């Protein structure tokens, strides 16, 4: 009898078939760990641990020469809430609130512009669609400093925008249109419009137009067509767009630094200050954590709105 079964070496947990090959579970585990190790270690050392490090740093204290004193204190958070050497001031709270508002408003304006823009592009003939899409991708990849600089030039006193504003009496003649809130929002919206529009486009492109026709057939108002037919279908793209717009917009410091001036200081500028001129890293770390908290609040607001 030739057909003797091979000895049963512990079947079950030890061996498994994975992508068509038999492995010992333990071997697979080691090989996977070895493959994952370097990248994971990198993210751990340069990202995860340092982020936790910021928490610890935020509990330390700045020394007289910008060095770090590792004493445990909540001073930085008290300062964040406005309790300083000279009594209470709302300066920092204002900056936090302003960051949140600027982030939300920028995102909202971008959404309002991105819908018509993406609908327009999606309804063009194919060749033109590709071309228009490229027009949207180029600013997406153009450096933010370069693009902000372009606004500084365009809003200079010698060029038409500032001249018209001066003629209308909004600004004294011979002065530029920046720094100020208009310039800040122009810079922010033009920076982030592609960030919102590109993910949104990927959803609009796949839109089921028949559903829109059906909604209109059933005498839906324009608003109803939008909320009942368009919004649910484009929500995946919109969500990605909102996240990649809102988070960096709130933390922005290039645009606000160049176009906003002191009055438009956002939390990003404040953090940059602490790690730059002021050299108060512990306070900077506390601000970073506040920014993270603001990010969460913003995303929570978006999710709540999404549910209703």
């Amino acid at each position, binding site marked *: 009898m030739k057909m003797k079964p091979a000895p049963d070496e512990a079947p079950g947990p030890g061996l498994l078939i994975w992508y068509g090959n038999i492995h010992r579970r333990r071997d697979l585990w080691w090989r996977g760990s070895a*493959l994952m190790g370097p990248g994971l270690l990198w993210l751990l050392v340069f990202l*995860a641990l340092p982020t936790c*490090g910021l928490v610890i740093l935020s509990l330390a204290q700045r020394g007289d020469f910008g060095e770090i004193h590792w004493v445990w204190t909540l001073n930085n958070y008290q300062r964040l809430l406005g309790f300083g050497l000279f009594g209470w001031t709302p300066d920092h709270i204002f900056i936090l609130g302003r960051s949140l508002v600027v982030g939300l408003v920028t995102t909202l304006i971008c959404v309002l512009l991105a819908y018509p*823009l993406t609908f*327009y592009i999606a309804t063009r003939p194919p060749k033109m669609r590709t071309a228009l899409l490229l027009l949207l991708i*180029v600013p997406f990849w153009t450096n933010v400093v370069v693009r902000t600089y372009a606004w500084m*030039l365009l809003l200079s006193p010698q060029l038409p925008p500032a001249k018209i504003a001066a003629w209308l009496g909004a600004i004294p003649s011979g002065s530029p249109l920046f720094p100020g809130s208009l310039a800040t929002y122009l810079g922010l919206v033009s920076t982030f419009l592609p960030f919102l529009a590109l993910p949104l486009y990927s959803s609009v492109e796949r839109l089921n137009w028949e559903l829109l026709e059906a909604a209109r057939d059933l005498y839906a108002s324009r608003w109803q067509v939008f909320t009942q037919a368009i919004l649910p279908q484009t929500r995946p793209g919109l969500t990605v767009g909102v996240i990649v717009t809102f988070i960096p917009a709130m933390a922005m410091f290039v645009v606000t630094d160049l176009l906003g001036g002191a009055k438009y200081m956002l939390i990003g500028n404040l953090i940059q200050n602490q790690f730059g001129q002021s050299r108060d*890293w512990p306070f900077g*770390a506390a601000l970073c954590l506040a920014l*993270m908290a603001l990010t969460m609040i913003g995303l929570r607001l978006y999710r709540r709105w999404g549910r209703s």
Partner: protein
Amino acid sequence: MNVRRPLVAAVAILSLVFLYLPSLAVAVFSVNNARYGLLWKGFTWKWYQQLCQNEAILEAAVNSLLVAVISTAAATVLGTALALALDRFPWPRRLTQALDILVHLPVVTPDIIMAAALVLTFSLLRGFADIFDLGLTTLVLGHITFQISFVTLVVRSRLAALSRDIDEAARDLYATGPYLFRRVTLPLLAPGIMAGAMLAFTLSLDDFIISFFTHGPDSVTLPIYIYSSVRRGISPEIHALSTLVLLATVVLVILAERLSRFRAD
């Protein structure tokens, strides 16, 4: 669509104009023959010629490219390995979910927080080794940190699109590990790895915030150079430099689009 077509078209076209008008203005004034002011004084290439003689700018350009090439190479290897490890091993679901969060972290963390965290790390590590003094090395290390995640995400999405059948068929047809990787996995994954690497490269060239925090006095990149010049005011050289950066972006984007279309065929 009768959602007021003309209105939609008007908003869309104005949005595009709004995106390009400032850059067009910069391009126009980059060939204006006037050192100061913004009055048209005739056409000239001289600002571009001056750029080529400005050593600081040339050095910044070289630094930018150097950092982008080195960090992209490293991040592509690390990120691809990480994607393969996450996707192609029977990890418990909980572990995969936890690792996913770690990998997604740089995508949703504001750049400035990552920058601050990196600065902190480098200052702590400086106690152990000189290479963590702020300079080209720290720039490269910082860039790799955010690039890894993007490479991993792109490669993973490609891996997810490859069905297990293909691997099983290869095994069924007598392929063993290395042969299968060389003849099947790698060629099928190549477009994803290429896309990930291109994304990483562009992100590196484009990055300002993390570079700004982690660069040293001798390792200025182009965006940092432009930023520090801009703070001193507008100048025709910067017009020219900005225009070149914009043109380089256009070329890169068109190249990437051609490449992806070529792959789709």
